[in-house]
C-alpha cells in the first residue's frame, strides 16, 4: 500500500492530553513538522512552559527542558550560549510569556537571542482552570473576572507582537491563527520561517498563535473557533509585525 501521509517523527507516540478542539495539538504538529522539514531532527532542543503545554517534553521527540513558569527564554538563552549551533525553541502560553515571564521574553528579544519562540495566545489561563490572562479580552468572563474584564480595573489586553516588534533585537514577529486550512498553511510557513531565521543566525523570532480553549471558554470546539474569529482576530490582527529578513 502506498503511504500517502506519515506523522512527523519529531512527535513521539505519546497521546496528547489536550482537550477536544484545543489548538495546542495543531500548533505542536506544525512546530514538529517545521523542525523535520528543515532537517533539524538531530540538532534541536526545546523548552516547555508551565501551562497546558507543560508536558510538551513528552511530545516533542528531541532533547527537552521543562522551565519554571515564564522563564523559558532565560533557560533557552543558557542553552543557546553553550550550543550556538543547535536550534533552540521555546513553546509558551500567554500567562507564561505575557504575564509572569515578560521580563525574560523582553530581554531575550533585546539581546537578539537566536531563538524561536512559539507563543500560544488563548486569552485565558488554561491549565489552572480558566483565570484571567493578560491577553483576556475586555468584557471576557473568566473565573477571576466573573463580571467580565474591566479595562479600568485591569488595563487593556497585552499585544505581544506589537510590543516585541518595537525592539531592535526582535528579528521576526508574526501573528497567525489556526481557524482555517488556509490559515494553518500560513501558520506553518511562519513557524518554519522562524526556525530558518534562527539557523541563519538571526534572532529573536516569535510566532504568536491565536488559539482556542473550548474547555475554559465554556464553548464547543466549533463555537470556540467562531468566538476566536469574531472576538480575538479583530483585537489581535493577524499578519507580519516584523520581518528583518524581508526588508
Amino acid at each position: 500500500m502506498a503511504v500517502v501521509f506519515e506523522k512527523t517523527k519529531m512527535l513521539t507516540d505519546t497521546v496528547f492530553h489536550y482537550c477536544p478542539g484545543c489548538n495546542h495539538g495543531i500548533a505542536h504538529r506544525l512546530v514538529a513538522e517545521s523542525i523535520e522539514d528543515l532537517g533539524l531532527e538531530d540538532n534541536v532542543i526545546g523548552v516547555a512552559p508551565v501551562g497546558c503545554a507543560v508536558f510538551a517534553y513528552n511530545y516533542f521527540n528531541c532533547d527537552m527542558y521543562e522551565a519554571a513558569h515564564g522563564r523559558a527564554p532565560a533557560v533557552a538563552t543558557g542553552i543557546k550560549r553553550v550550543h550556538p549551533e543547535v536550534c533552540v525553541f521555546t513553546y509558551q502560553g500567554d500567562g507564561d510569556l505575557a504575564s509572569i515571564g515578560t521580563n525574560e521574553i523582553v530581554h531575550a528579544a533585546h539581546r537578539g537571542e537566536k531563538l524561536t519562540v512559539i507563543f500560544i495566545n488563548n486569552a485565558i489561563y488554561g491549565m489552572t482552570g480558566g483565570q484571567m490572562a493578560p491577553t483576556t479580552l475586555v468584557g471576557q468572563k473568566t473565573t477571576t473576572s466573573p463580571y467580565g474584564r474591566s479595562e479600568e480595573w485591569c488595563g487593556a489586553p497585552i499585544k505581544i507582537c506589537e510590543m516585541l516588534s518595537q525592539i531592535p533585537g526582535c528579528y521576526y514577529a508574526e501573528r497567525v491563527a489556526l481557524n482555517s486550512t488556509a490559515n494553518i498553511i500560513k501558520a506553518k510557513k511562519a513557524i518554519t520561517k522562524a526556525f530558518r531565521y534562527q539557523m541563519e543566525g538571526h534572532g529573536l523570532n516569535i510566532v504568536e498563535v491565536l488559539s482556542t480553549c473550548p474547555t475554559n471558554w465554556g464553548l464547543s470546539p466549533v463555537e470556540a473557533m467562531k468566538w476566536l474569529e469574531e472576538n480575538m482576530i479583530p483585537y489581535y490582527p493577524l499578519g507580519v509585525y516584523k520581518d528583518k529578513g524581508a526588508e
Partner: protein
Amino acid sequence: MALTLMKGSEAIAEAAIRAGCRYFFGYPITPQTEIPEYMSARMPEIGGCFLQAESEVGAINMVYGAAGTGARVLTSSSSPGVSLKQEGISYIAASELPCVIMNVMRGGPGLGSIQAGQGDYFQATKGGGHGDYHLVVFAPASVQEAIDLMSVAFDTADKYRNPVMVVADGMICQMMEPVVLPEMQDYKIDYSVKTWAANGRGMSKPQRAIINSLYINTEDLDMLNERLQATYRVIEANEVRYEAYNLEGAEIVCTAFGTVARITKSAIDDLKEEGINVGLIRPITLWPFPYKQLHDAAVAPGVKAVLDVELNAGQMLEDVKLAVNGEQKVDFFGHYGSHMPTPEEIKEKLLSMREVL
C-alpha cells in the same frame, strides 16, 4: 609555586575559570560586583561566555539552561539577589543539575546593608527555595581557601549532580591576600559520561535528554525524592569538611565559619599566650554539617562549654545545639550582619564565660 597578591573576588572568579567554568550569568549587586566585572573581561579572552542577565531570576534560569547541557556554569550574587534565585535553585536541585552558586552575604533582612553578614545560613543550608532539597554549602575563611574550594565545588556538583553553593562575605571578596592559583583546566563536556545532558542530538542518542522537575504521579515524585534523599545521605557520609583548631586541652570549644572563624582564631591565639586554652571547630561544609566531629569535640574531657560565634542572630547555633545534643552548655556571641565582631570582644566573652564555669 608562585605567590600572587590578589583581591578575593578576582581570585575566586579566576579559580572558577581554572576549574573549567566557561559560563557565567549574573547581575550586579554589592559586595560581589567585582566577580561579574572580572568575568566580563576574562571570559572573552578564553572563549568563555559572560552574560549580564536582566535579573537574578533571569541569571539562575540561564544557569539552569547551561547546566542542563553539562557545562560548568557559575552564578554569583549577594543576599537579596540570592533570594530571587531561590525558585531557580529549587528547580535545578530537583532536576539534578550540577552548577555552582556564590552568595557573598551581606547584612539583612530586606535590603539590609552592603557590609558583611552571615544571615543567609538558614537559607543556604535548610532549603531556601521550596521542597525537600539540599545544596552542598562551602564556607571558605580565606581567599586561598576560596580558591581551593572552587574546583572542589565544581567536582562535587558534577559528582553528585547537585547544585553547590559557596557562601562568603564582603570581607573575603574585598581583601587582598597572597595566593597560589591552580593550573588551568580546559573542561570539555563528555556526553558519553553525561548521558543525561542535552546537546540537541535527541534523535541519535539511545535516550533523548529530558531536563525536568515535574512528576505529576505520586509514585514518580516519590521516586525522585527517594533518589535525592539517597544522594544526600551519601553526601553526608562522605563530604563533611571542617577544621579543628587548638582542641588539645581546650576548656571551651568555639564554633564559627567564614571570616568570623578567622577573627575567633585571633581571640584564641591571644588567650593561648595568656595560658588559656580555647579550641575551634570551623565547619568548611555548612551542609553537610560536621555534627559528629563537633559533638566529639564538645564532650571531650576538660571541655566545659561551647561558644558559637556568628555574624547574625544565631543561625548555625541551631545546628551546634543539635550536634551537642544537650550534653554540653552552649553559649552564643554574635553581631547582626554588617559589623564584624573584634577579637577583643570575643576574648572578653570567652573570659566572662570562664568566670562562671
